[in-house]
C-alpha cells in the first residue's frame, strides 16, 4: 500500500510541476504586455496625439509610423503575388518532387535568420542604388512575408473538400479556371487570414530593416527611393542610446507597436482555429 502512496505522491508532484512550468511559460507574455503598458502610457499620455504626429526631436514618432505603413504596403505589393502563386502550386502538386521540395523550402525560409535577408537585400539593392530606401526594406520584408502567406494559402486550400473540386471540374472548366476562379475564392477567408498574420509579423520585424531602410525620423518620407523609418527600427536605435529620454520614447513606441500587433492579431486569431507561426 505504501508503494501506491508513493506513486500517488509522484502524481501530485507531477501535476504541480506541470502547472508551475506552464505558468512560467505564459508569465512572460503578461509581464511584457504589462510592462510595455506601464512604461509606455505615461509618455503617450504626457504628449498626447503629438506623440503620433510629431517628428523625433519634437517628441513624436509620426515618421516612423508612416514608414511602417509604407513598408507594409510595399512589401505586400511585392510579396503577395509570388506567395499566392507558390502556395497554390504547393496545393496543386503536393506529391510531386518539386511540390515537396517547395514545401520544404518554404519551411526553411519561414525560419531563416532575418538579418541575413536584410544584408542580402542591402547588397543587391541598397548598395547598387547607393542609398538606403523604402523599396529596399520592402523587398527584404517581402522575402520574409512570402513563406508565411504561401504556407497559409496552401493550408487554406487543402481544407477544401474534394467534392467541391469535383463539382468545379464537373462544370467543364479548365484547371486554371477551377483553381483561380472557384477554389481560390472559396478559400479566401483562410488566405486572407494568412496574409494578415504575415503582415502582422513583418510589421514588427527589425533586423531586415537594419541595413536597408536607413531610418528617417525627423521628417516625413517623400519618396520610396529614399530612406524611411519604421517603428521597430526606431525602438532598436533608441534602446541603445545612453539617454534616458530616448528610453522613454522607446517604451512609448513599443506600446504603439504592441497595440498595432494586438489589433491585427487578436481578431484574426479569434476567428481561426489553429495558427502556426
Amino acid at each position: 500500500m505504501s508503494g501506491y502512496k508513493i506513486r500517488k505522491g509522484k502524481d501530485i508532484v507531477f501535476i504541480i510541476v506541470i502547472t508551475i512550468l506552464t505558468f512560467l511559460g505564459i508569465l512572460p507574455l503578461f509581464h511584457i504586455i504589462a510592462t510595455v503598458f506601464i512604461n509606455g502610457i505615461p509618455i503617450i499620455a504626457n504628449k498626447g496625439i503629438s506623440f503620433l504626429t510629431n517628428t523625433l526631436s519634437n517628441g513624436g514618432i509620426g515618421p516612423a509610423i508612416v514608414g511602417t505603413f509604407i513598408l507594409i504596403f510595399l512589401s505586400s505589393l511585392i510579396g503577395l503575388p509570388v506567395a499566392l502563386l507558390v502556395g497554390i502550386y504547393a496545393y496543386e502538386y503536393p506529391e510531386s518532387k518539386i511540390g515537396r521540395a517547395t514545401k520544404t523550402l518554404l519551411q526553411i525560409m519561414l525560419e531563416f535568420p532575418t538579418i541575413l535577408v536584410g544584408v542580402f537585400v542591402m547588397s543587391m539593392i541598397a548598395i547598387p542604388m547607393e542609398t538606403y530606401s523604402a523599396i529596399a526594406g520592402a523587398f527584404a520584408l517581402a522575402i520574409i512575408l512570402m513563406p508565411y502567406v504561401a504556407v497559409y494559402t496552401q493550408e487554406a486550400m487543402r481544407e477544401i473538400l474534394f467534392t467541391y473540386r469535383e463539382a468545379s471540374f464537373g462544370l467543364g472548366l479548365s484547371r486554371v479556371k477551377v483553381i483561380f476562379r472557384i477554389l481560390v475564392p472559396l478559400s479566401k477567408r483562410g488566405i486572407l487570414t494568412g496574409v494578415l498574420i504575415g503582415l502582422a509579423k513583418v510589421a514588427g520585424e527589425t533586423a531586415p530593416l537594419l541595413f536597408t531602410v536607413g531610418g528617417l525620423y525627423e521628417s516625413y518620407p517623400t519618396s520610396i527611393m529614399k530612406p524611411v523609418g519604421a517603428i521597430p527600427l526606431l525602438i532598436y536605435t533608441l534602446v541603445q542610446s545612453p539617454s534616458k529620454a530616448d528610453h522613454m520614447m522607446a517604451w512609448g513606441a513599443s506600446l504603439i507597436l504592441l497595440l498595432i500587433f494586438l489589433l491585427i492579431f487578436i481578431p484574426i486569431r479569434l476567428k481561426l482555429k489553429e495558427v502556426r507561426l
Partner: protein
Amino acid sequence: MREYAIETKDLKIYYGKKKVIKGINLRIPKNTIFAIMGPSGCGKSTLLRSFNRLLELNKDAKIEGEVLIFGKNIYGENVDPISIRREVGMVFQYPNPFPHLTIYDNIAIGLKLNNLVKSKEEMDKRVRWALEKASLWDEVKDRLHEYPASLSGGQKQRLVIARALALKPKILLMDEPTANIDPVGTKNIEKLLFELKKDYTIVLVTHEPAQAARTSDYVAFLYLGKLIEVGPTKYIFEKPKNELTEKYLTGSLV
C-alpha cells in the same frame, strides 16, 4: 443502328494495380432513367465518373476500353475532357452548391466561366430557366442573392441540379443524389427526375434498390466491378435471372 446515349465497350478501370471495374459492356438508351445499383464498394461511383472523365481527378486511375457518348469515344485521341463535362453534367452524393456564392451565382458561374452567355439579361433568363427546370424557382425566386446555407438539403440538391442543367448537357449523371436528403426532399427529387427524363438521359447510381425500382426504366446490377445483370426494371425486379441479383434484392448480400 440505334444510337445509345452512353455505351461502354469492355471498360476496365484500375486504381493503381487494383482492377476496380472488370470489363463492362453497357448500353444506356436515350431519354431514359438508367439506374446502377449494387452494394457499396462495388465500383458504381467509379463507373459513373468514367462517363464524364471526372475519374481523371484521381491520379492513380487508369482506363482501358471505350466509352461512347452518342457514338463518340470520349477517350479517343484528340478528345478534350473538359468539353465532355459540359455535355455530361453531374450531381453528387453530398449536395455541394458553392458555399461562397449566392444562389444566383452558383448557377451563373458555370455559364460565365464557359462564356456561354453574353449579357446580363440573358444570364438572368438562363438562371431562371435552370431553376424552373429543377423545380426550385418558386422557392428561391425572392432570395436569389442569399447563400445556399439557408436552403434545406433537398433544395440544395435541386440547386446543384439546376447548376448542372444550366449548361444544357444532354446527359445527367447522378451519384446517389438522395443519400443525404430527408424523405420529403427525396420524393421531390425523384418526382423531378420523371420530368427531366423527357429532355435528358439520366444515369442514376443508387444505394437503394427500392429507389431504382421506383424511378428507373432500366437497371444494371453491379457487383465487385462486374456487370451481373441488366435490363428493363420491371423484369429485373420481378424475375431476376441471376442468383446474385436475387440475393441482393432480397437483402442477403451485403
